[in-house]
């Protein structure tokens, strides 16, 4: 057992205790958490700063606004419905088209307007929000993911997670939905995590349920060696999120739309540690390197260049 501890320490793998005590509690002031725990706030904040986000179609905050649902949805053929304070992709409804009066979701269900309203009522009551607090609902643009990922994802939209430390992107992975995760890009639910080389933006080996895999379990295609498009731009957006929120240690979730390019989805003030398994690399050494050099890195360009130089895999 001591062997394992030594090995993990030599790899610079970070545990939860260290993340909480040395990074989150030091670099993420508590008062900033509401900015990222509420996706609507994050979205507005990012939009005002000129960052690209999925376009907001409408917000529903109280029960009676559900009556206006028909008029909000009238001009739309496809859209996504999300709880503002949901976690892990729960409660998200993605509509890809219409069949007469009915709405077709991405997993092939047909729902009537009434059924969607019922779903909204549930979301408002806070079924999926942290701590069950009453929630708000976001209706937004449905991301059409870049064809690069078509071969290696199932049902849902793959997203790119980048850990940003004081503005320097230090590690990233792409999360691919599977049949097991029900199209959700959540590693706990069975999505695949694939590390990305910070220098080149190409994918590394994949991790599925804590073990290394070569191929996507549903499509059978290799996941290694895929070039993530717009890599430089993704890193720049991620880096800007530090100034945007003030959170020193933050997980930035992005998607790549085939028409609009990289879009900011959400931020996470307590990003998970599985990214280390996906990259087969530890966070500690990278965090240390940033702490030593942070005084020299003033601009976004500096920080992104530093990341691409130092953190190649």
């Amino acid at each position: 057992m001591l062997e394992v501890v030594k090995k993990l320490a030599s790899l610079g793998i970070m545990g939860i205790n260290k993340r909480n005590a040395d990074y989150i509690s030091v670099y993420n002031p508590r008062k900033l958490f509401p900015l990222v725990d509420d996706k609507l706030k994050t979205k507005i904040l990012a939009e005002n700063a000129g960052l690209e986000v999925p376009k907001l179609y409408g917000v529903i905050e109280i029960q009676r606004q559900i009556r206006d649902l028909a008029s909000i949805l009238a001009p739309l053929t496809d859209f996504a419905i999300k709880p503002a304070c949901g976690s892990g992709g729960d409660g998200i409804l993605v509509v890809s088209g219409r069949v007469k009066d009915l709405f077709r979701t991405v997993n092939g269900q047909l729902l009537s307007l009434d059924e969607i309203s019922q779903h909204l009522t549930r979301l408002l009551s806070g079924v999926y929000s942290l701590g069950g607090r009453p929630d708000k609902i976001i209706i937004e643009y449905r991301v059409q993911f870049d064809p690069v990922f078509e071969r290696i994802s199932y049902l849902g939209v793959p997203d790119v997670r980048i850990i940003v430390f004081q503005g320097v992107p230090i590690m990233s992975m792409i999360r691919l939905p599977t049949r097991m995760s029900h199209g959700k890009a959540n590693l706990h639910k069975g999505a695949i995590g694939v590390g990305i080389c910070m220098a080149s933006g190409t994918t590394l080996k994949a991790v599925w349920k804590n073990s290394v895999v070569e191929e996507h379990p549903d499509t059978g295609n290799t996941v290694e060696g895929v070039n993530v498009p717009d890599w430089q731009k993704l890193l720049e957006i991620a880096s800007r999120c530090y100034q945007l929120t003030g959170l020193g240690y933050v997980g930035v979730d992005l998607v790549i739309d085939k028409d609009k390019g990289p879009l900011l989805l959400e931020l996470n003030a307590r990003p998970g540690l599985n990214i280390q398994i996906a990259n087969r690399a530890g966070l500690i050494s990278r965090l240390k390197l940033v702490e030593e050099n942070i005084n020299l890195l003033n601009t976004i360009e500096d920080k992104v260049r530093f990341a691409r130089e130092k953190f190649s895999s």
Partner: protein
Amino acid sequence: MRKYHLQILCTLLLVIGAGLFLYKALILHYPLSPDTQTDAWLLEYHPSFSAKGKPLKLSMFIPKSTQQFLIMDESFISRGFGLTTTYKDGNRQAVWSIRNASGQQGLYYRAVVRRGNIGDTNEKIKPPELKLSGLEGADLEAAKSLVADIRAKSADTESFLSTLLKRLNETGSDTNISLLLGKHPTSLKQAQVAVQILSEAGIISRVVFGVILEDQSRNAPIIHRLEVYENRNWKSFDVITGDVSLLENFLPCWRGLDPIVQLTGGERLKTVVSVARHQEAAVLATVSGAQITSPAIVKFSLFSLPIETQSVYKVILMIPIGAFLVTLFRNLVGMRTFGTFMPVLIALAFRETQLLWGLVFFTVLIATGLTVRFYLEHLKLLLVPRLASILIVVILFMAMLSVLTHMIGIERGLSVALFPMVILTMTIERMSIMWDEVGSYESVKQGLNSLLVAALIYGVISNQIVGHLIFVFPELLLIILALTLMLGRYTGYRLLELKRFRALVD
């Protein structure tokens, strides 16, 4: 500075905690393990009542030293009351009085009872006089006919008495006895009638009240026995069984038929009698033995509290231990439980139910709650009404469980009421949300984790030595605090993370 702040604080706490502990253990020779052999108890009477703004007088029987027991260190706590102690018919009585009092009032009488080794002092007991039975008319005739009847069937005083007690317990069999006992005979009434009949038979007897000196009894019952004068000695009998064996730990408190407390000028009288084995006695014995003039630390201790409060603190002081263990499990092992401190409260409840029954009750309650929760899920209720509904069902079910187990004679079922039901409700809610979101496996696993942690905590806090150490040396909590603070800055791996990151090592 910030770097050393915590280290300095922890060192300080450790030094103070360990220092006080060592001082008390090594220099004052406080006992390190519970001494159940000490024959000393703390006896406390606590009458409370509400005064009506009129002159008030409260008289209470208090024990006096006997051949077996010494009454020492008596204290009377009574703010603003005048106090006298008198002897009345061989009983000791404390009389509190006040000209004007109103509102809720409480008085305390506290004494240390030690087993005395006076042995046979050959003290001459003054032969008591036979008192008249006070029976008249039909009652007198009934008593006389009983005496004649029983005398015919017995050889001596002892067999007379045992036949009498047997007859008195078979109510309804004899019209004479039914007449004397009245409609609703209590065991006290039986004793009273026995005294009357015995006096008709020319045997001197009396009723004695007292308490059993136990390890710990927060509401000690006052029991009564029958005493008969024979061969220049008083002999005591159990009223129900006629058992003559002398109860070793029976402390006689007063004789006669009056209640322990008599009150004029007040109402809603309630008297709590508590008994606890007196650990301080052992502690103080060693202190005085070492010829140390009692330092302030000795006086400033939990032993100075009323016994009732002491028993409460015996439980409360266990909570820090539980919290520390939870911290260990969370930050060192990485075990997740429902509700951070829920296992501590469950473990406290286990103290009353015992482990096995506790586990059974807990599982049954959670399973029922979950079933109800899944049913309510269909109704799409809002959060707070849903939680309230589950709480109501859980409490109803608890009551049912208590009644049911009581009916089939499992007394442990009564203690189910000590389960923290609000915590249970929250656990049920969290478990069911997790069931939906992450799956049944993870949810049940975490539930079992919580139960396992609770059982382990119970194992530690129900340990007699741990309980004794924390109560006699509360400064040990400073050490616990220091360790907890240090854990707060533990940034190493958790045990379960080693498994999680296993893939990276191979």
